[in-house]
C-alpha cells in the first residue's frame, strides 16, 4: 500500500482533486455560516456527499496513474510556493475520514436538529460547522506538503475541536476544553518552532525537498525534537494526555466520535510525515524506541484504567488513550539499520491500518455509547445489564467495533497486528511483539466486560427513556462493520496470504484465546463484574488475586491522576524533550 506509487516531481494530472478536497469543506463552512438555521445541516449533507466523491476520485486516480498526485498552488513551485501532495497514505486516510465523517453526519442528524419553532439553535449551528472545519483541517493535514501549511491545518483542527468538547456548556466540559485548548496551543507553537529551525537550516518547508537534504545537525535535531513533542502533546500520547479523558468523555456522543476517531489522527499523521518523509535519517533508533516505550505505557495505563472505569464513555476515552499508544509501536519496527533511516514497509502499513481501524471502530463505539446513554438515561457500566434486549443493534455495533479493535480476523486491526508482529520478528525486537500480544488481551478485557454487562439479565425489565432513531443505530453498526472488514479492503496492495479464513480452526482458536484471556482479566481486576452466577463463583475463587490486582490497578489510576496534573504534565513534556534530544544526539 505504501510503496505502490511512484514519487512525482511535478504537477500530475488529477492534482486538481487535491485542491477540491480543501475547497469543498471550506465552501461548506462559508455557506453554512452564512445560511444558518436549518440550512446548516442541509449544506453539510451536500458537502459530505461531494467530499466523499472527491476522496474516492483521488484514490481512483492514483490507482489509475500508479503515481502520487502533486499540485502546485498558484502555479508556484516549491520552495517558493506551496505544494499539495497525496501518496497512498494520504489517499487511504482521506477516504477513511470521509467515510467516518459521513457516518457521524448520519448519526448526528437526530442529535443536532434545530428544534421546531426556533430559527437557529446554538448546538446544531456550531456542531455542523465545526465538523466541516475538522474535515477541512484533516484533509489539509493529509495532502499538504508544506510544514507551515501543516501548522495552519493543525490550528484549524484545534479551533474546530475545542468548541465540540464544551458544546453542552457544563462547567466540567468547559474546563476540559480549556485544558485541551491551552495544552494544544503549547503543542502547536512548539511544532512551529521546529518548522522555523528547519527553514533556518534548509531554506525550504517542502517535505519532499527536505527528505532529500536533511541531515542530523544541531538545528535539525532540535527541530525534530520540538516538532515531535508538540505533536505528541496534541495527539495525547501518554504521559502527555492530561486533556484527553475528560474532553473525550464529556462531549456529546457525536462530538466524542469525531474527536476520538479523527482529530487525534491529524497530529499523529504529521509525526509520520516528519519521521518517514521529511527527515527519515534524523531521529534514529533510540528515539524510536523511546516513542514506542511511551506507546507501550499508553497501552498498559489506558487499558488497565479503562477496565476500572464505572462510566462507559470514560471507559471508551481511556481505550482511545491505549489505542493511540498502539500507533507508535511501529516506529522502531520501521527503522532500517542498514541505511539508518525509517523506511516505508510493512510496519508503516500496519501502523496506518491500525489508525484506520481505530478511527472507524472508535467512532462506532462512541455512537453506541451515546445511544445506550440515551436509552438508559445514564452510562454506568454496573447498571447496564439487559440493555442488549432493548437496543440490540446498538450493542451489536459496540461488540463488532470492539472485536475489530481486538484484532480478530478479518478486521483491519488483525492485519495491522500481523504486519507489526512480522516486522518485529524481522528486526529481532521481540519485546514489541510481547507488547502487541498483551495489548490484544487488554483490549479484549474491556470489550468483554461491556458486552457481558449488556447481555446480562436485568434485575427489572428496562423501560427505555427514549426510542433511539434506527438511522443512528445503523450508522454505528455500519462503521463498526467497516472496521471489521477493513483488511479485505486493502487486499489489493498486500499479499492475500496474510488474510486467513476467519473460520479456520487456527483462527477460531486464536480468537477464542483472545476473548477468554480478556474475560480472565475482567475477572481478575474489574470493579463492575457482570451479574452471572458463574462469574460470581469464579470471582469468589479468585478473591485473593482480585484483591492484589485491584490494588495494583488502583496504583495505575493514582499514577494517571498525578500525571494529569498540569504541572506534572508540563514537566514530563520538558523531560521528554530533553530525552528525545539526548537519544537523537547520541545516535549520531
Amino acid at each position, binding site marked *: 500500500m505504501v510503496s505502490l506509487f511512484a514519487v512525482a516531481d511535478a504537477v500530475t494530472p488529477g492534482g486538481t482533486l487535491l485542491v477540491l478536497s480543501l475547497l469543498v469543506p471550506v465552501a461548506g463552512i462559508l455557506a453554512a455560516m452564512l445560511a444558518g438555521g436549518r440550512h446548516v445541516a442541509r449544506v453539510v449533507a451536500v458537502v459530505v456527499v461531494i467530499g466523499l466523491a472527491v476522496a474516492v476520485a483521488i484514490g481512483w486516480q492514483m490507482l489509475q496513474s500508479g503515481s502520487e498526485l502533486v499540485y502546485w498552488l498558484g502555479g508556484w513551485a516549491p520552495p517558493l510556493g506551496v505544494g499539495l501532495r497525496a501518496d497512498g497514505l494520504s489517499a487511504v486516510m482521506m477516504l477513511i475520514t470521509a467515510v467516518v465523517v459521513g457516518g457521524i453526519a448520519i448519526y448526528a442528524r437526530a442529535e443536532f436538529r434545530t428544534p421546531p419553532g426556533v430559527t437557529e439553535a446554538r448546538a446544531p449551528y456550531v456542531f455542523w460547522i465545526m465538523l466541516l472545519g475538522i474535515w477541512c483541517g484533516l484533509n489539509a493535514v493529509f495532502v499538504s506538503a508544506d510544514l507551515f501549511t501543516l501548522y495552519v491545518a493543525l490550528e484549524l483542527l484545534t479551533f474546530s475541536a475545542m468548541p465540540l468538547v*464544551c458544546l453542552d456548556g*457544563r*462547567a466540567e466540559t468547559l*474546563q476540559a476544553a*480549556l485544558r485541551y*485548548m491551552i495544552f494544544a496551543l*503549547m503543542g502547536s507553537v512548539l511544532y512551529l*518552532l521546529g518548522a522555523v529551525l528547519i*527553514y*533556518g537550516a534548509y531554506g525550504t518547508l517542502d517535505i519532499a525537498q527536505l527528505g532529500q537534504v536533511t541531515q542530523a545537525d544541531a538545528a535539525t535535531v532540535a527541530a525534530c525534537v520540538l516538532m515531535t513533542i508538540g505533536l505528541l502533546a496534541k495527539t495525547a500520547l501518554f504521559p502527555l494526555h492530561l486533556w484527553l479523558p475528560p474532553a473525550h468523555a464529556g462531549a456529546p456522543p457525536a462530538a466524542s466520535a469525531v474527536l476520538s476517531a479523527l482529530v487525534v489522527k491529524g497530529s499523529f499523521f504529521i509525526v509520520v510525515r516528519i519521521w518517514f518523509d521529511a527527515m527519515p535519517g534524523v531521529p534514529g533508533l533510540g528515539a524510536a524506541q523511546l516513542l514506542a516505550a511511551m506507546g507501550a505505557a499508553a497501552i498498559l495505563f489506558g487499558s488497565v484504567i479503562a477496565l476500572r472505569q464505572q462510566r462507559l464513555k470514560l471507559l471508551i476515552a481511556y481505550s482511545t488513550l491505549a489505542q493511540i499508544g498502539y500507533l507508535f509501536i511501529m516506529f522502531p519496527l520501521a527503522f532500517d539499520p542498514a541505511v539508518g533511516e525509517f523506511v516505508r514497509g510493512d510496519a508503516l502499513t500496519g501502523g496506518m491500518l491500525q489508525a484506520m481501524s481505530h478511527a472507524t471502530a472508535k467512532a462506532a463505539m462512541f455512537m453506541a455509547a451515546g445511544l445506550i446513554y440515551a436509552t438508559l438515561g445514564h452510562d454506568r457500566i454496573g447498571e447496564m445489564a439487559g440493555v442488549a434486549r432493548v437496543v440490540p443493534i446498538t450493542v451489536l455495533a459496540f461488540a463488532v467495533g470492539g472485536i475489530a479493535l481486538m484484532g480478530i480476523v478479518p478486521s483491519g486491526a488483525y492485519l495491522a497486528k500481523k504486519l507489526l508482529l512480522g516486522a518485529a520478528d524481522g528486526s529481532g525486537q521481540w519485546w514489541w511483539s510481547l507488547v502487541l500480544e498483551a495489548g490484544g488481551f487488554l483490549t479484549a478485557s474491556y470489550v468483554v466486560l461491556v458486552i457481558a454487562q449488556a447481555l446480562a439479565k436485568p434485575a427489572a425489565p428496562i423501560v427505555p427513556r427514549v426510542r433511539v432513531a434506527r438511522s443512528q443505530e445503523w450508522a454505528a453498526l455500519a462503521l463498526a462493520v467497516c472496521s471489521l472488514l477493513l483488511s479485505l479492503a486493502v487486499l489489493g496492495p498486500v499479499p492475500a496470504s496474510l488474510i486467513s479464513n476467519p473460520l479456520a480452526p487456527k483462527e477460531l482458536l486464536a480468537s477464542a484465546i483472545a476473548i477468554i484471556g480478556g474475560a480472565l482479566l475482567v475477572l481478575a481486576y474489574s470493579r463492575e463484574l457482570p451479574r452471572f452466577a458463574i462469574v460470581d463463583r469464579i470471582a469468589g475463587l479468585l478473591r485473593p488475586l482480585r484483591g492484589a490486582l485491584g490494588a495494583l490497578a488502583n496504583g495505575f489510576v493514582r499514577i494517571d491522576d498525578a500525571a494529569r496534573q498540569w504541572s506534572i504534565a508540563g514537566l514530563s513534556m520538558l523531560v521528554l524533550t530533553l530525552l528525545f534530544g539526548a537519544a537523537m544526539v547520541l545516535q549520531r
Partner: protein
Amino acid sequence: MTETTLLGLCAAVLVGLGLFGLIVNPQPLRKVLAFNVLGGGVFMLFGVVARRGAAMGFGGDPVPQGLVITGLVVSFAATALAVALILRLHAVAGTASLRADALDATTAPPTAAADDAAAVQRLT
C-alpha cells in the same frame, strides 16, 4: 557575535520563559499570557532566520516575514478564543481554575436561571 545572533539567543530565552510560565503559573489567563510570550520568541526567531537570509536588496528573506504575519493573526485568534473560554468558565463555575477539584460536585447545570444569575452578576 552579530546583533542578529544575539537576538536569536534572546528569542531562545523568551521560549524558555514562556514555557516556564505556561507550566508553573496556575491561572489560565497567565498561561495565555505566557503562551503569547512564548509565541513572541518563536516569531522573533523566525525574524532572525529571515534577517540571516537577507539578499537581493531585501532587508530580510520575505517568505518567513510573510509567514510571521500569518502566524501573528492565528495566534491572536487563539488568544481571543482562549480568553472567551476562560470568561465563560468563570461565569458558569465562578472560578477559572484548571484543577479538577476546583469544580465542586454541586456546580449547577446550565439552566436558564443559572445563566441569568451569571449574567446579572457580570453586568453589575
